[in-house]
Every structure is written in structure tokens, then in C-alpha cells.
């Protein structure tokens, strides 16, 4: 049975602003479900609707098979972790952590035990007597997480919990979150605009834009087969090569004019109706040495970005003067201005409808 089911959910804010438009998805038990999208796409609103912090305009939300659409947040037993932590500034850390348990009039010894457990897990045992204002961002983030953990909630709702941390801490907390989620066998619903976070943590990603769901799936699935240009563009690190090009089709081969390469087609019918098409190829699928199933294209090295463990080349195709990004091993050395051969992996090129922008099967 699914853990959380969101059915035809919509949310309008005043003046007819559609924050969320008729979305439906389900979250399985023990999923690390990531809502991913640019700011203003409705992902946070969706999370707040699940948590009951906003009222739905229409649609339903089910938790463990029970309709909770109109249930008060205090009765949903869902733990919410906020981007800016939302700790209670007048309470020390211990009181912050125990707040929900104290409200439920839990036995003092049990509270004590729980807090010590969680504090140990999050390595905040020595901070218990301090006030939130005396903690660093990372420590506050841990306390916010701890406040959710002490409760044994039915699911965790996390709203961009790592975005206020510095890059290094974010990576560490990422690992920690994955570890905790696995250890507790908990269901996490996690909102982020950071595709690296989504790729690394999620068991399932739901990509949203303008209040609508574009694609739901396992991270690798979505990465390999984005169903539209927006997803292909958004789920890319650092960038995806996406271009519009004139095409011609002869027999079962398509010629992409922009880079002048021929690719074989299985599904000629679908592509036949276009004389122009959008195609994408990721930087790691363009090589600088010949491999199987590749097509050679001449180009000039324009910019080299050395990231330490790899290099990102920006090359200009000689024929059409378009710029492509190529990801290479950092040990390979090129000079700027050097004329090189690059090899497109023909199986990795994706085609999109130039008007509807959705994926076309080759």
C-alpha cells in the first residue's frame, strides 16, 4: 500500500495564482521522495499541503489510506523540517527537542531517553543546554532534524533543509540524511531545487514546473530518459547540450544538419513529420577518442574548465560554429585553440518535438 497518495491536488492563492495545478502522485513506504524544481514551481506548496500548513483548493491527500485532506496538522503526525530551521528561540535545545513529546504529556524518563538517543545520533549531545542563537547553522539544522526524529512520525517532510548550509556541510549532511533514512526505514518527502541533492539522495524524483508535474521516476531513469526539454535541461550538471537543428531523413537514417552527423532510426514515422528538431546530448556522452557507435566531428577547443577530478571543455564545431560542452578526464591535456576530433555517442542522442518539447522515441 502506498504511504502518501496525492490525488488531483490544486492550490490557488488569492488573485487566481495557481501554485499547484491538479497534481497526482503516490509515495511508497520507505521512499526518499524528492520534489525537485526551480523556485516558484509549487514544490514547497505541495509539501506544505501534505503537512497541512496550507489548505487545499481542491483534491485529496491520503496518508496510510486515510483521507487527511482536512485534518489539522497537529493530528497528522507528520514531522516538518523547515529551511530556516524554525527553532523556538526562547527554549534551549533540550526543550526544543522535547516540545512535541511534552505536548503529548509523555513520561519524563521516556523523553529523557529519546532525547539522549537522538542527540547521540546527530552528535548534538553537548549542545542540549544551549539556546538556538548560540548554535551555528549546521548545528541548528541538526536540532531541527532532531526535533522531527524524536517524534516517530508517520513520515518526514523536509523543505530545502540543506540550502542554508555551506557547500561542504551540505555534502556531509546529505550523507547523514541518507544514512538516517535507511536506518529508520522512514518515509522522507524532500523538497529541493538542487538537482545534485535530488540525484544523490532520492529513491524517486518528482520534477515540477509551474505547478505541474513533468516527470516522476527513479533518478537514473529520469537522467537517462527525460521526457521533455525542461527536465533534460534542469537535471544536468553542469549543463546539457541542447540545440535546435534542421534535419533530413534518408532511408532509416536521420541527418542532423547542425553538426552534420547521421543517426539510425527505428521509429521513422514519428520523426518524419518534422523538418526541424531539438536534440540533446550530455557532456559525458561526447568523447575525445574513438569508441564504438560514435560519429566523428571536427571542433576547436574554446575554453577549458579544470574541476580537479575532471575537465569541462567548451568546443566549437568547425562547420556550424555552435558551442558544445564535453566532459573529459582531467589527465587529458588540450590547448585552447587546438583543432580536435570529438565523437558523439549515437545511442545517447535524444530528440524532442520542437513545439511541444516532449521526447520523441527514435
Amino acid at each position: 500500500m502506498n504511504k502518501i497518495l496525492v490525488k488531483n491536488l490544486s492550490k490557488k492563492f488569492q488573485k487566481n495564482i495557481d501554485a499547484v495545478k491538479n497534481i497526482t502522485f503516490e509515495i511508497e513506504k520507505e521512499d526518499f521522495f524528492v520534489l525537485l524544481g526551480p523556485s516558484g514551481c509549487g514544490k514547497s506548496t505541495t509539501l506544505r499541503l501534505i503537512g497541512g500548513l496550507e489548505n487545499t483548493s481542491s483534491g485529496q491527500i491520503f496518508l496510510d489510506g486515510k483521507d487527511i485532506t482536512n485534518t489539522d496538522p497537529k493530528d497528522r503526525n507528520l514531522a516538518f523540517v523547515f529551511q530556516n530551521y524554525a527553532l523556538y528561540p526562547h527554549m534551549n535545545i533540550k526543550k526544543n527537542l522535547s516540545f512535541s513529546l511534552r505536548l503529548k504529556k509523555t513520561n519524563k524518563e521516556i523523553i529523557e531517553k529519546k532525547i539522549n538517543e537522538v542527540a547521540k545520533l546527530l552528535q548534538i549531545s553537548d549542545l542540549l543546554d544551549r539556546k538556538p542563537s548560540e548554535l551555528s547553522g549546521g548545528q541548528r539544522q541538526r536540532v531541527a532534524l532532531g526535533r522531527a526524529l524524536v517524534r516517530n512520525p508517520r513520515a518526514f517532510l523536509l523543505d530545502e533543509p540543506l540550502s542554508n548550509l555551506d557547500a561542504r556541510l551540505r555534502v556531509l549532511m546529505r550523507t547523514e540524511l541518507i544514512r538516517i533514512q535507511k536506518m529508520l526505514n522512514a518515509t522522507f518527502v524532500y523538497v529541493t531545487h538542487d538537482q545534485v541533492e535530488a540525484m544523490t539522495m532520492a529513491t524517486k524524483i518528482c520534477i515540477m514546473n509551474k505547478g505541474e508535474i513533468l516527470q516522476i521516476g527513479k533518478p537514473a531513469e529520469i537522467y537517462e530518459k527525460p521526457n521533455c526539454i525542461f527536465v533534460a535541461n534542469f537535471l544536468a550538471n553542469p549543463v546539457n547540450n541542447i540545440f535546435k537543428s534542421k534535419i533530413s531523413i534518408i532511408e532509416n537514417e536521420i541527418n542532423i544538419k547542425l553538426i552534420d552527423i547521421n543517426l539510425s532510426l527505428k521509429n521513422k514515422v514519428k520523426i518524419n513529420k518534422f523538418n526541424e528538431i531539438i536534440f540533446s546530448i550530455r557532456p559525458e556522452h561526447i568523447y575525445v577518442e574513438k569508441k564504438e557507435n560514435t560519429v566523428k566531428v571536427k571542433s576547436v577547443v574554446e575554453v577549458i574548465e579544470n574541476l580537479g577530478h575532471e575537465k569541462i571543455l567548451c568546443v566549437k564545431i568547425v562547420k556550424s560554429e555552435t558551442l558544445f560542452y564535453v566532459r573529459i578526464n582531467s589527465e587529458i591535456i588540450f590547448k585552447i585553440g587546438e583543432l580536435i576530433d570529438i565523437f558523439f555517442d549515437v545511442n545517447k542522442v535524444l530528440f524532442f518535438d520542437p513545439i511541444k518539447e516532449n521526447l520523441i522515441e527514435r
Partner: protein
Amino acid sequence: MDNNLNLSDRRFGYILAAPSVLIVILIILFPISFAIVSSFFDYTLINKSFNNFIGIENYLNAIKNERLFNSIVVTFFFVILVVFFEFLLGFFIALLLNTIEKFKSIYYFILLLPLLINPIVVGLIWRMFLHPQLGILNYLLSLLGIEPVNWLGDPQMAFVTIIFVDIWHQVSFMIILLLAGLSAIPKEPYEAARSDGANIIDCFLHITLPYMRPVIIVTILIRLIFAIKTYDLIYIMTKGGPGDATDLISYYIYRSAFISLNLGEAAAMSSILLTIIILLTLPLFKYMNRSD
């Protein structure tokens, strides 16, 4: 002090500051010192001179004065009751208004109106409303079949009426300050608390009250200090009467000085009142200067 400023620059600074310093000395420091000095003399309006130094005799007389004692008791109850009800009512209304998003500027304007009206005018308006025969209040009561009430004529009733009018006049002050405090509380702690399982009362006790503590303390202290000094309302509405039922300390001091013409003793009483108010103000200053 900044040592880089050379002498002429510093002198120029003093010259610039001089007019305002002079004004402060003239209109604040001089009257206060004059009052304190005259409290040690037998200084009356009939005999305006500093010839008769009598030490602390004015103070001794003041302390022994039963009427002063009475006015201190009256003031004490007046202040406690007025501040208590204004706070309770003000906080309640502020909590209700805080949930309203629309028409903020309109109700803020309405709330500010009583504060904008001169206390003398407030007193006059209410004296008309409360007139035993001609007042609108007794007329309205008569429509309900209730006997006319002698609002300002009966000692106990007059005290209650004065408290009521003061609440009417001053409760907006509480509402506006508390409302400002309430609207400054961030939303997230409430949302966190609701997710943590808190109901409305839990939220009020664990979020609203702790967040509002500094505002509440400052508001109550300010109102307390102003309430002790209440004078104009009494002057217009009851003149301290009937008997001495509404004889607040400020009004009693005024009577001693300008009706009994005993300026020295009145000055002594003023000094005592000043001391009390300063003692009350100290915690306020301490609180406001706290670094966190």
C-alpha cells in the same frame, strides 16, 4: 572622546549644541530644580520667597498628611485596575485583529483616534454622555427600563466611571503596541509547533507569550507610569470628588499648590512622586538596554 578633534572643532560643536542644551535647561532642568529647591522652603504663593528654609518639614508634613495618603491609595487602585483591564482587553483585541489581513490601515486609523483626542476633550465628551439628566447613556438605559445612574455623583460609581473612561481612552495604546509586537512574530515557529502537535492554546502559551514578553513588559511599564500621572481626566470630570473618591495624586498635588497655595508642600509631594516614578522607570531602562 575623540582626540583627533582639535580644540576649535570641539568648540564649534559646543556652539552648535548650545541652543538645544539651553532649551533643555530652561524648560526641563530649571522647573525640576526649582521644585526640588522650593520643597525645602516655606514657599507659598502668598509669600513667594526663599527666606524660610525649613529643611524636610514639608516632607514630614506630606507623609503625615492623611489626604495625601488617601490619594496614594486611590491612585494605587486606579493604576492597578486601569492597567490590568487595559492590558487584558488590549491583548485580547490585538490577538483578534492580528488574524485580519484586510483593511489594516482602516482599523489602525480608528484605533488611533482616541489617542489623538486631547484628554480635556475626552473628559468633556464623556461628561456630556454621562450627565445624569441630559446624558445619552442614561437615555439609552431608560429605553431598556433601567433607572438613571448617577455616574459621577456617587463616590464608588465615580471611581468606576473614571476607570471606564480611562480604559476607553487608553486601551488603543495597548492594542497598537501589542499588535505591532504580534505582527512581528515570524510564522515559522507557529507552523513548526502545529506540526509538533500543538493546539491553539499551546501555541499561545509556548510561542506567542514568550515572543511577546519584551513587548508586554515595556507596554505595561509605560502605561503604568502614564497612569500614575493621570490628571486632566480628573480635572475635567470630577475634580477629585465626590469627596475624595477620585482624588488621584497628581490632582491632589495640583490642589495643594494652586488651591491651598502651599507650593512648598506640593513641591515636596511632587518630589516623592518623582522618586516613585523613577523607581518604576529603572527596570524599564534596564530592560531596554539589555544587549540581547
